[in-house]
């Protein structure tokens, strides 16, 4: 690819408009992204005017130090459980729902719109909806639990909290995944199903031998989107269980609470350099996992 002739004469207005756009992105997005790596080697704090010192790899050593290791491993474990479970379950369910909605049913655009709706509602609204549903003292979930003679603190129960946050995350994620799978399904030519039917393939065989292989690119897109998103998502855990709940401590939430003390007041004493090092570690984990997943799925796509 090389540049092609610019028909509008002088390039000044092109340079100015393009430069302005890139400058906005560079200053407010790219510079902060690169600076995360730089400040992870310093002891920068939340207030300006305090001296900033280079501390080398101290922040990283601190992440793995005995005092922090349990907390961080817990956050790492929760993050992985959260990402893997929500990705796998949401994708399996979404694939089923997409196949269901792809039949010639009345009102399927409506069904699709309903399932997609959580995407627009946002975490605060969704957090309240499900806090209400899982209200421990009175609510539908408490009633269902009582049928089995059980009660639960739900989001307040350290053994259940993470599972429930994952459940809500799946509820949200399914919408986008269904939409992508539906688009993939609609791109499969009818002739293939026809040919398979003539060859005597059963319904299940047609699903297995036609739908699934041809949907492989959509699976790749969905799984990647979901795993990258859920490895970095923390807003939901934040609104459902608070910023400092060990049961739902995620790496990104750890970045937030280390940098900003988990309250709206920015703590001057908080070491944001240390928080930045968690951010870098998370970035590396996300990068490695997404590359592994991508190469695995691409190879599978080729084999199918």
């Amino acid at each position, binding site marked *: *690819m*090389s*540049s092609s002739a610019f028909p509008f*004469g002088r390039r000044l207005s*092109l340079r100015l408009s*393009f430069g302005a*756009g890139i400058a906005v*992105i560079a*200053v*407010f*997005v*790219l510079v*902060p*992204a690169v*600076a*995360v*790596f730089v*400040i992870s080697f310093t002891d920068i704090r*939340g207030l*300006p005017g305090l001296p900033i010192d280079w501390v080398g790899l101290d922040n990283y050593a601190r992440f793995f130090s005995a005092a922090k290791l349990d907390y961080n491993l817990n956050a790492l474990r929760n993050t992985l459980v959260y990402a893997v479970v929500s990705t796998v379950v949401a994708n399996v369910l979404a694939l089923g729902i997409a196949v*269901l909605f792809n039949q010639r*049913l009345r009102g399927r655009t409506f069904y*699709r*719109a*309903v399932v*997609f709706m959580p*995407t*627009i*509602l*946002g*975490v*605060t*609204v969704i957090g*309240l*909806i499900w806090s*209400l*549903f899982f*209200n421990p*003292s*009175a609510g539908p979930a408490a009633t269902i639990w009582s049928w089995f003679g059980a009660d639960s603190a739900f989001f307040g129960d350290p053994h259940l909290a993470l599972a429930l946050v994952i459940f809500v995350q799946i*509820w949200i994620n399914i919408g*986008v995944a269904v939409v*992508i799978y539906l688009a993939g399904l609609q791109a499969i030519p009818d002739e293939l*199903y026809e040919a398979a*039917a003539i060859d005597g393939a*059963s*319904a299940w065989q*047609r699903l297995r031998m*036609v739908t699934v292989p041809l949907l492989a690119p959509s699976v790749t897109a969905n799984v990647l*989107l979901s795993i990258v998103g859920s490895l970095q998502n923390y807003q939901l855990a934040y*609104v459902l269980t608070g910023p400092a709940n060990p049961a739902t401590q995620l790496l990104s939430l750890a970045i*937030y609470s280390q*940098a*900003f003390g988990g309250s*709206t*007041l920015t703590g001057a004493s908080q070491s944001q350099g240390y928080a*930045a090092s968690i951010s870098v570690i*998370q*970035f590396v984990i996300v990068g490695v996992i*997404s590359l592994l997943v991508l190469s695995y799925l691409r190879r599978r796509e080729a084999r199918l």
Partner: protein
Amino acid sequence: MSALAATRRTRRVRPPRPGRMLSYALVAVVLLVYLVPLLFLLNTALKSTREFYADPNGLATSPHWSNFADAWQQGDFGAYILNSVLYTLCAATLGTAVSLVVGFPVSRLYLRRPRLWNGLFVVLLFLPNSLITQFQLLLRLGLYNSQLGYILIIGASVGVGPILVAAYTRSIPRELDEAAAVDGIGYLRYLTSFVIPLAKPALATVFILQAIGVWNDIILATVLLPDRSKAPVSLGLYAFQGSYTSDWGLLAAATLIVAAPLIAAYVFLQRYLIGGVVGSVKG
């Protein structure tokens, strides 16, 4: 022959279907999972606190509409919604404009090193969590706790915007650029009076995707706008939840106040939105 083909066409099932009734039953289950929580929210919003605790799952028999007025007043939602409208309009406009001015010339190969710029657009999707450095940047620019600073940070996070614009504007024939140029139309005027109308679907998608992100943001607003009077409605609702923990009628009414404009907008915009999600994955 053609009649036979027609019956085949109508009989053709795609993909396999065990039975229409079963399909509709499954659809009903899926819809219930999505609609019941919302209906329960609505039902709760119509109950007084005493009614709620007496029978949380029962239907609201005498609608307690005053919850909405009370929540509106006590939560100061009018002010929060105005803030959110301001942030959403400004940031989504900024993000869409940036996506347009960088996406279009790159798709047209009007710049040197198009590979570099395309690569940059992809890199924008995979950046580390920059919450801390964005906070530090605004602090040092004197834009901390400023509405402008917040809009700049969240508006500049264009995500898939440039890719969507670049992919869509490829369908505008290059001959149009040349014809307009021959007629003496300058580049900027061409952008505003030709590219914007022609790329409206893509630009609308970019705008809506970003608007959703801004309207629903809670963490950036918490960190960058400590001043309660500047908080967007997501944060206002979260704070409201903190102060009325067990007053569920009021809380549910407040949630609906925040959700209603979104649901109303969604009814009209869902086509653009769903098309945009599919487009951004293909892009």
